[in-house]
C-alpha cells in the first residue's frame, strides 16, 4: 500500500504553503526517494522503537516538508501534527528535528547526517543485527567535508548495512553546482571510496528500490538518484527561486492544477 507520488506532492504543496516555509523545490526532488526508502524499511520495528530497527537519516534536513508528509502517509505522524508544520509552537521545524517522534536525528546544518548514520550502522553491526541504515544527502551538501570523512571510514569498514542515497538534482541554493564547485563524477568518487554504486532515475521508485532491496554487497551502497529540483511543477523545475519562495495565491493554484493532472 503506497501513496501515489502526485498525491504526496499535493500534500507537500499544501503544508509548505500553509506553513509559509521555504524549500519546496528540494522537497519535490526527493519524493520518490523517500517513498522508496519507506517502502523498503521494516516499519513495525520502527513503530515499536526496537533497538535493532531500520533507520532513516535525512541529512538534507531542509527537505523536512517532504519527510513529514511521507511519515504521515506511512502512519508515523498524525493529521494534527502535520497540520502544525512551521507554525508557532510546533515541533515540526523547517529542518528535520529529532524532537518529532520517529525522526532519528536532527539535521539541517549540512554534513551532519552521514557520520551519525555511520555510527548507527557500526552499532547495529556490533549488535549483529540485520537492520539497515538509509541516509539521504543532497548533492550540494556533499561540498561539506565532514561527509567525506564518513564516506572514507564507511568504505574502509565495508559497512554493508549503510545506504547513502544522493538526491542529485544538480543544484544548491545558489544555482547549478557546476557554477560553484562541481562534484562530478560522483559515482566514480564513491567507487573509489570502496562503495557499491548505482546511478538511477531518482523519480523512479522502482529503480531505487531495485538497488536498495538487495544487499549482497560487502560494501556500503551509494545510490546516485538523478532528480529534478522542483519536480512535478513546471515553473519550479530547476528554478533556484523555489529554494526560497513559498507558493501562494495564483502560484499555489497553478501548481495544484499541474499536480492534479
Amino acid at each position, binding site marked *: 500500500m503506497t501513496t501515489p507520488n502526485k498525491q504526496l506532492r499535493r500534500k507537500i504543496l499544501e503544508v509548505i504553503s500553509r506553513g509559509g516555509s521555504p524549500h519546496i523545490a528540494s522537497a519535490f526532488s526527493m519524493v520518490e526517494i523517500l517513498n522508496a526508502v519507506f517502502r523498503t524499511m521494516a516499519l513495525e520495528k520502527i513503530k515499536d522503537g526496537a533497538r535493532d530497527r531500520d533507520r532513516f537519516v535525512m541529512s538534507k534536513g531542509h527537505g523536512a516538508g517532504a519527510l513529514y508528509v511521507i511519515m504521515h502517509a506511512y502512519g508515523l505522524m498524525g493529521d494534527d501534527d502535520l497540520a502544525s508544520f512551521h507554525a508557532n509552537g510546533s515541533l515540526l521545524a523547517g529542518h528535520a528535528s529529532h524532537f518529532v517522534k520517529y525522526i532519528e536525528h536532527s539535521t539541517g546544518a549540512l554534513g*551532519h547526517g552521514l557520520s551519525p548514520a555511520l555510527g548507527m550502522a557500526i552499532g547495529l553491526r556490533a549488535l549483529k543485527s540485520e537492520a539497515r541504515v538509509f541516509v539521504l544527502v543532497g548533492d550540494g551538501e556533499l561540498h561539506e567535508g565532514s561527509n567525506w570523512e564518513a564516506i572514507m571510514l564507511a568504505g574502509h569498514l565495508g559497512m554493508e548495512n549503510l545506504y547513502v542515497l544522493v538526491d542529485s538534482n544538480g543544484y544548491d541554493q545558489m544555482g547549478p553546482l557546476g557554477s560553484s564547485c562541481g562534484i562530478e563524477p560522483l559515482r566514480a568518487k564513491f567507487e573509489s571510496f570502496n562503495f557499491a554504486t548505482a546511478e538511477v532515475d531518482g523519480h523512479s521508485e522502482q529503480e531505487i528500490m531495485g538497488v536498495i532491496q538487495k544487499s549482497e554487497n560487502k560494501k556500503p551502497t551509494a545510490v546516485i538518484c538523478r532528480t529534478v529540483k522542483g519536480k512535478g511543477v513546471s515553473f519550479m523545475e530547476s528554478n533556484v527561486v523555489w529554494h526560497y519562495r513559498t507558493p501562494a495565491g495564483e502560484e499555489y493554484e497553478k501548481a495544484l492544477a499541474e499536480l492534479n493532472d
Partner: protein
Amino acid sequence: MRAILFHKIYESMRRNPNLFFLTAGVGFNLIEPMCKEFPDRTMNVGIAEQNLVGVAAGLSNLGFKAICYSYTNFLAERAFEQIRNDICLHRYAPIFIGTTAGFDNAGLGATHHALDDIGALKTLPHLKIYSPSSSESIGLIFDEALASDMASFIRFTKNDFSEGHPVSDANRFVIERHAKILIISHGKMVANSVRASEFSSGFDLFAMDRIKPLDAGKLKDLFAGYRAIVVVEDNFKSGLYNSLAQWMAENDVKNTRLHSISVEETYRGEIGTAAYLEDLNGLNPKQIADFIGLINKDLSSYDEI
C-alpha cells in the same frame, strides 16, 4: 594520569558491553590492548574529529555510551558543531576525553595549545566540563562521567600530581589552613598552586575540577569565607574565571574580590617548554606565590585604614 585513566577505561569496557571506545588517531601504545580484547567496540576512525563525534552520536542513538578520545583542541574546536548539534542538541551522553590540555604541547606551537577550549565549550548547554587535577581526581571524574546521563568533556594534561589520598569530590579543598585568600584552580595549575606553598602560606587552595555545571552550593560558602579569591588556570580568562565572575554578578557578591592568573589572550609565535610558557604568563609556583603576597599586602593596608 593517563595510565590511570586508561586503566579505568579498560576496566569499564570489560564490565560494560554497552561502552564503545573511539579515537581520532590518538593513543599510540594505549589503545592496543582494547583493540585486541574488544575489537567490535574499539575503533580508530582516523584523523577525523568531526566524524569521531558524529559516529558517537549514531552509537548513542542505539543506546551505546561512546568514549571519544583526541587532543583537547581538535576535539573541542574542530568538532565544535558536531558536539553542539549531534550531541548536545540530542542530549546524548558520550564522554569526550581531550588529552594535552593547556600548554602540554607547548613546543609544538599555538595550533596545539588548548587555552580557549573551556570558553568555547561552556557556551553549550547539556555538556559537563571537567579539568582533573590529580591522579585521584581523574578516576573519580571518569566514574562520574560514566554514570552521567549528560555528555561530559574531560580535558586533561600529562601532569602526574598525586594528592596521596582518595578524594570524594571533583570540587574539594586541597589546602585548607584558614588563610584570607583562596586560590581556586583546576587541572595542572592545582599542582603549580600546591608548589606555590613552598614560597607562601598565605592562601588556601580549592580544586574546582568540575567547571560546569558550576558548583553553586559550594560557591556561597567559599565566597563567604575569604577576602579575596584568585583563579589560577592554564586557560584564557574565558575559562573558570569568567564563570565565577558571572556567578558573582548574579549573586550580588560584594565583600570578596576576584582575581585571575591566566594565559594572556593572544596566540603567540614564541614557543618553549610548558614551564617556559607558564612562566611567561605568571603561572609558575613562585609567581603565583608573589601574586598572593601582593594581594595579602593590599588586604593588610586596607585593614589599617
